[in-house]
């Protein structure tokens, strides 16, 4: 049963817990920004993640491109260059969008034992 308490790195754990509190408070935009920051931090902790590929429609794409494209989108060229960036193409985010990013960050962090 994955929860933020299972994250080893204290900084990452604190970021994810902050995002959860922001979601609880109905602050979807704040939570998405915190989660984008959390994911970039996770990539710093686990740089090998940037090299991983997954199969998608008969071709391979970087694993990190599974990051949900809901308006805070990870830039493919930045991933290829090894300096990942998340671009905000919208200013406001809903709680359910934040939940989607939250689940993604939590699952990735725990799978990579961060």
């Amino acid at each position, binding site marked *: *049963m994955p929860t933020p308490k299972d994250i080893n790195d204290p900084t990452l754990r604190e970021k994810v817990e902050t995002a959860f509190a922001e979601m609880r408070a109905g602050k979807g935009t704040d939570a998405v920004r915190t989660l984008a920051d959390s994911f970039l931090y996770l990539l710093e902790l686990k740089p090998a993640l940037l090299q991983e590929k997954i199969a998608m429609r008969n071709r391979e794409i970087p694993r990190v491109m599974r990051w949900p494209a809901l308006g805070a989108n990870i830039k493919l060229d930045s991933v290829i260059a090894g300096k990942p960036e998340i671009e905000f193409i919208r200013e406001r985010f809903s709680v359910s969008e934040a*939940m989607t990013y939250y689940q993604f960050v939590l699952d990735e962090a725990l799978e990579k034992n961060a």
Partner: protein
Amino acid sequence: MKFGLFYELQLPKPADKDQWNPDDERRIYHEMLEQVELADSLGFDYVFEVEHHFLEEYSHSSAPELMMAALSQRTKNIRLGHGIVLTPPNYNHPARIAERISALDILSNGRVEFGSGESASEMELGGFGVERGLKKAMWEEATREITNMMTSTPYAGFQGEFFSMPTRNVIPKPLQQPHPPLWVAASRRETTMVAARLGMGSLGFGFETPDELGERALEYYRLVREELMPIGHAINPALAVLNTFMMADSDEEAMRRSANGPAFFSYSLGYYYNPAVGGKHPPGEFNVYRDFLNRSSETAQMQQQRGGFLSPEEIRSEEPADEVQKALYRAARSGNAIGTVETLRKTLLKYEEQHLDTMIFVAQCGDRKHEHIMESIETFGKHLLPEFKERHESEHRKWRAEQLKGVDFPINSSI
């Protein structure tokens, strides 16, 4: 475990014609009425119907509220599920949805299940001017406010990002209080977890396996207990999974009767949901079914087994990793709930062991025959439904009550 039927109202064009026969749309609507009437008489628990627009052949169900209204007068107990209503305001104004759901709840004496979602096909998003990147935010804003409209007298009005309206009393109010059970379409694991946190039933369109479901069910109910942030005024803790369905006296005959229903279901779904292909669909001109047959002739056997809008290379390879592709792959396989009474019992027991709340059968799809669907509903209703119903009452309800211990938010759920 409870059971339901799921309808897209698929209508493949005749392969040798450019258009449907004049009576085809009337026919499938009336066949659905007959099928659901039979299911109701046998004790099926749910019927869920989609809302889709412009997806020729894949789904001719653009006004499900009318079908549900008709069913409300022809059935007695079966619950009438929107699976789902498109709630981004460009499709349907939120106040109109609240009015229609409540009116249907009254007409059906409180049998409505309110599923909501956004769709992802370019035909629909483009047709109604819904921006793809905003659809999830639109869905949430509208769905949240619809529940407020159904529970507030008067509704205080709203100045939102995607719609605004002044103070009005949105009437009628639903019979079920505070509002009918809420569901959301979920084809990915992460959406099921979002559903749990929002207190919504998860209508699993991912054709999940029993093993996947086991992990998901435990995690879903944990999130309901520990991380609930309800979107509505009552929660509906519930997990449903779709499965393709056809029964006969032998597995071989069931497969034959299943025809290419699952493969066409998957193929046409993939066709419209792939923006690069479905976005360029020429309205009124293209014959998706003929295209499907031409492609499947290249890989007929594999298409029958695995098919879908996947390339021959993908079909030959293992199950795709991507969840949407995986759903298409699984939908296409003929072998989920297809077979004899014994075959289905074995399959369904695996889901029951993993604590699934509801199994929803896709019976009407592709070019399957009405009489075969009717026979399957009857066989299932007479030979399998009673034993699963009994265990639902005697065992599953207890398990679910344990899962929900400590939840102190109102629950309105038909599970």
